């Protein structure tokens, strides 16, 4: 379907502003809406046939933001946007919002989340839409029509709206780390038992790094923070591309516009991740939000909130990890891209 010119930009602008407002309250959204007088988006002397088509396309565009993989806040914003567009449309009878059958379980889960976390205004809005019979329950999300297009338009939605990839976090959860620790201890004990000297394992048996579980956890934490900082930087995209890598100890990847390096960094970071730190670093953000919101943050795995306290940090040994320098970079946050640390082999 050929899209309405300028509509995607407007919607993304509104949703972006809503995301920056960092709240999910409808009042805030309504303020933003009124600022932009978004309801005028249907104005302009359009005849009935064209208006039907236009409204259909508008609702379809807004509906795409309502589904995963978008971040929770964006999805709530999309819900409000759909409500606004549906209510202020000029078509009579009103054009409906198409939801595919496969998406309904997701949406119902979403609604349950809303109710659980006491975002009653969003849940109410959703219920209002349901009661107003605003939805068409369809087999496929997009209405087909047949036009030979010169090129298939790829809709690229802003990356900021998407949830940061949680695959790392879901892989290395608290439980996993705990179990790893247990196994590690057990392993150490076994080694001690079969060695000559009962107090410590034989040198010949030392095949792994002893501290690896703790290291793993630390690296995961770093990844966590790196990701958050990266998101912040992405939002303040006006920063100049300064490279302060020169001051870094250890080889850090050049971050000057090299997408490949960035991708490599991301991939390597994905092999280390942790869950623990999230709640602590997020705590200061939680305070700003409404008291009605629950402690857990959406989009991140729920196990996060279970372990608020950090594991005791080992003494930072300069030879085992070069992360220290990187930590400083993370705090300064001048560069757009944060390089990744190289982990040197621990010499036994």
């Amino acid at each position: 379907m050929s899209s309405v010119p300028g509509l995607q930009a407007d919607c993304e602008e509104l949703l972006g502003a809503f995301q920056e407002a960092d709240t999910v309250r409808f009042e805030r959204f309504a303020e933003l809406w009124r600022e932009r007088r978004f309801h005028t988006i249907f104005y302009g002397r359009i005849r009935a046939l064209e208006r039907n088509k236009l409204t259909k396309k508008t609702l379809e565009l807004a509906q795409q933001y309502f589904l995963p993989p978008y971040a929770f806040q964006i999805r709530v914003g999309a819900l409000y946007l759909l409500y606004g567009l549906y209510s202020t449309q000029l078509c009579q009878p009103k054009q409906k919002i198409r939801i595919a059958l496969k998406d309904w379980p997701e949406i119902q889960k979403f609604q349950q989340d809303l109710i659980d976390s006491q975002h009653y205004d969003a849940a109410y809005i959703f219920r209002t839409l349901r009661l107003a019979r605003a939805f068409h329950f369809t087999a496929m999300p997009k209405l087909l029509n047949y036009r030979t297009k010169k090129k298939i338009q790829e809709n690229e939605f802003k990356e900021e709206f998407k949830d940061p990839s949680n695959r790392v976090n879901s892989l290395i959860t608290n439980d996993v780390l705990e179990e790893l620790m247990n196994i590690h201890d057990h392993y150490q004990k076994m080694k001690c038992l079969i060695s000559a000297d009962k107090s410590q394992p034989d040198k010949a048996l030392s095949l792994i790094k002893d501290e690896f579980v703790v290291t793993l956890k630390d690296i995961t934490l770093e990844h966590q923070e790196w990701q958050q900082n990266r998101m912040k930087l992405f939002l303040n995209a006006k920063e100049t591309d300064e490279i302060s890598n020169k001051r870094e100890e250890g080889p850090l990847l050049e971050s000057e516009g090299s997408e490949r390096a960035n991708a490599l960094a991301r991939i390597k970071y994905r092999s280390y991740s942790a869950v623990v730190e999230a709640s602590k670093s997020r705590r200061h953000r939680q305070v700003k939000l409404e008291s009605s919101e629950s402690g857990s943050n959406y989009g991140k795995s729920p196990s996060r909130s279970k372990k608020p306290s950090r594991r005791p940090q080992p003494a930072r040994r300069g030879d085992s990890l070069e992360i220290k320098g990187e930590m400083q970079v993370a705090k300064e946050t001048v560069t757009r891209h944060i390089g990744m640390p190289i982990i040197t082999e621990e010499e036994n």
Partner: protein
Amino acid sequence: SIDMLMPSDKEEDPDVIPEDSSLLTLRIRKKALERREETIIVDRACRQETLAYEMESHAIGKRPDDPGDLVEEGELLLTLNIFYPVIFQKHKDHKPYQTVLVLGSQKLTELRDSISCVSDLQIGGEFSSQPDQAPEHISKDLYKSAFFYFEGIFYNDKRYPECRDLSRTIIEWSESHDRGYGNLQSVKMEDYTFNDLSLKIGFPYLFCHQGNCEHIVIVTDIRIIHHDDCLDRNLYPLLIKKHWLCTRKCFVCKMYTARWVTNKDRLAPEDPCFFCDVCFRMLHYDEEGNKLGEFLAYPYVDPGIFN
């Protein structure tokens, strides 16, 4: 808890785009509107647009007089695009089609009856010697067979004894050699409703009648019936979109739709030549009805006859 905070308080004219809008959409639209104002002298809906809009919306919200005809909740509504079989050069890129809404519980035969194809009205035979006898047997009455092809199964219309199984030829052909087609089956159309079928959306299926008039059928949408839809069962299958075909006019008066076509006609400037009924008789027959000159005349049904 929270309600409509959206609309503005003062009266606004939805036709006027506000001057100082921050929305990109409106800025673009305003430019387009201004351009339109400069180039178009009279800006109103043309006939085709009015027709298209009317067709789309004429049945919305209709309720039946007889409550027994009410469409039930949970009924499925399918949208089918049925393509015309005419092949004109100008239709190379966009083949014309009509859009029909059907209910899931309707039989296939109901859809078959609702498809209006010009080939159904064709009258075979040369009638130059007896022009008054022409509109006797239209093809729809003579050749009643038809079939649908969905997902490997042929649904043949067997309601009348003269209906033949057109799909038998195809099935025999595919079974004769190993052509790579799976089991093709043949069943009766009148026994099946749309709910019984398993369909792919966007996949072309076939409707064939008259032995060789083939229409491609594509399902574009399946959804659950909605409160605002037409709930009168008698109105389904409902036609909501039709392609407007220009009719060929009589060569002489250029006013009426052509009803006759002549070949090898000494009195006509071109071959074939189209005439409306009046002009045809005036030119080719004298007062007594004798045929003047040599020619072959066939009744002609224009594809645009359903406009």
